[in-house]
């Protein structure tokens, strides 16, 4: 599995760039994934609001939240989610939040 190294942290991802072991996520991992996979040089408060919500939801329910819930809880319109995470909520934000890849033809 490919490894992304930054500073002195190594993050192992699968072929699609999703965290190989979702349980090993922390905020530094998020920053590394955001930069390597989404091209985000830094994460703003809005990025963090989205990522933290997704992470907490996943830790609690074992699933990725619906994009509607992400928008409602963070108060950000869908259009802005796509501006923050160019790959979108599932492939972008969920990836940065250390979730596994969603199933389906996507």
């Amino acid at each position, binding site marked *: 599995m490919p490894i992304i190294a930054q500073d002195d942290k190594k993050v192992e991802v*699968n*072929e*699609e760039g999703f965290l190989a072991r979702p349980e090993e996520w922390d905020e530094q991992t998020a920053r590394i994934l955001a930069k390597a996979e989404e091209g985000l040089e830094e994460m703003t408060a809005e990025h963090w609001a989205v990522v933290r919500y997704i992470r907490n939801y996943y830790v609690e329910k074992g699933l990725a939240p*619906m*994009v*509607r819930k992400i*928008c*409602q809880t963070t108060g950000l319109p*869908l*259009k802005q989610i*796509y501006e923050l995470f160019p*790959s*979108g*909520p*599932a*492939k972008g934000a969920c990836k940065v939040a250390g979730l596994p*890849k*969603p*199933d*389906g*033809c*996507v």
Partner: protein
Amino acid sequence: MKKRMKVAVSGIVDVPLETKSQDKARRDGTASLKEGRLKAYEAGSDNVGKFLGLLGRRISRSLAVSMTACVHCGMCAESCHYFLARPDDPTMTPVYKADQIRRIFKRHIDWTGRVVPWWVHAESPRTDEDLNRLKNIVFGACSACRRCTLNCPMGVDTALLVRFTRGLLAELGIVPEGVFNVSRDEWETGNQMAVTEEDFLETLQWMQDELQAELGTSEVEIPVDRPDCDVLYTLNPREIKFDPRSIANAARVFHIAGERWSLPKWGWDQTNFGLFSGDDRLGGYVARNVYEAAERLRAKKIVISECGHGYRSTRWEGYNWAGYAQKLPTESVVVTLGRYLREGRIRVDPARNAEPVTFHDSCNIARSGDLVEEPRRVLRAVCADFREMHPNGRENFCCTGGGGLLSMAEYRPLRLEVAKIKAEQLKATGAKLVCTMCHNCIDGLNDVIKHYGLDMKVVQVLDLVSSALVIPKRPSGAAGGAR
């Protein structure tokens, strides 16, 4: 002195069989697995024997023709993006891939294979490992785009052979994990992304609220299970789960066009994974859900949102899989949009789409679905600078994410490597936007764009129509009155 041909074979055949999800489904007592609709791998049972038995029982005339008509001329090789990107790898040619099932057919069914097996290269699988290698070829080295079929002088349908083989393997549970997961989800929840009814309805309500706020009227709706509608609209679950803006876009257009339409509460998933997994049973189940929803709501027409395998499955193949006599016209939403434009039911301003746009014909829509001209008519009406890529239409190259490959992570490196052909094709257009009618292609093309660093964005026809849509001062509220 004979010069040795340089051969560099990909390692795709060595990908092992993963059964984590299958084991979990067994432990969880997943209904579709218990009831035998979905199959899981059983080590130690006579899988090769079962495989050969199924092969014998399922052979049809069209399959037999494709098995026997190949003269090994090699014309298919030049049509396949896998081989064009890896010209030193003969295992990437369509003829090689088809030969893997053909040689089994020749060994066990065709008389030549029984009498002179060495001459016709007949060979039988002996172990489950052989079946696994076959799985890697038919799921991982082919996107079932049918470009080879189109270019074969003998009419051999390699993609049909690939799909047939996938179906045999699916019956034994020898499939990539992604295929098992999606099949399981579609059986259990009726849609391939396990969207619950609650999430479905709440997302639609959310989009309706936003639309009403935007247009300043409560007459715009996203109706669910409204009977006696003219149009039953069906979706790709991706639209609910990832980006419901496309549903809002469709609703806005329907409202302005004064359409009487509805979504069904059950049977709204048109995407049909049975096309990719080769499982006609699953294909029939999903297609039937849609057809029966239309019947239940007494709709006059089924309209399919922009999705390639959804279009081909729902419009063409599903009726055969489900054994269902077609009673209603079934069309793509792009055809509907074209009609609205022609009839003046919606007005557009192409200047709003100023960036150069090219169109990517999806395999299951153009080549295998016969819908080529209509999207172009719509795009010429809504874009200022529309340009073709080459080749295009029925000869277009696959986005490289077809055939369900996007759900199979283990084959991604090879897929992206051979996407070089697609990247070159896209770059040559000089366009900033590539428009496609298929959700699969959106992700497939996005992967290509990201991997090859192209400066382009992917959009759908509905996106471009919505950008150019001229919203009348007083929207025509003829959307069928109160619910």
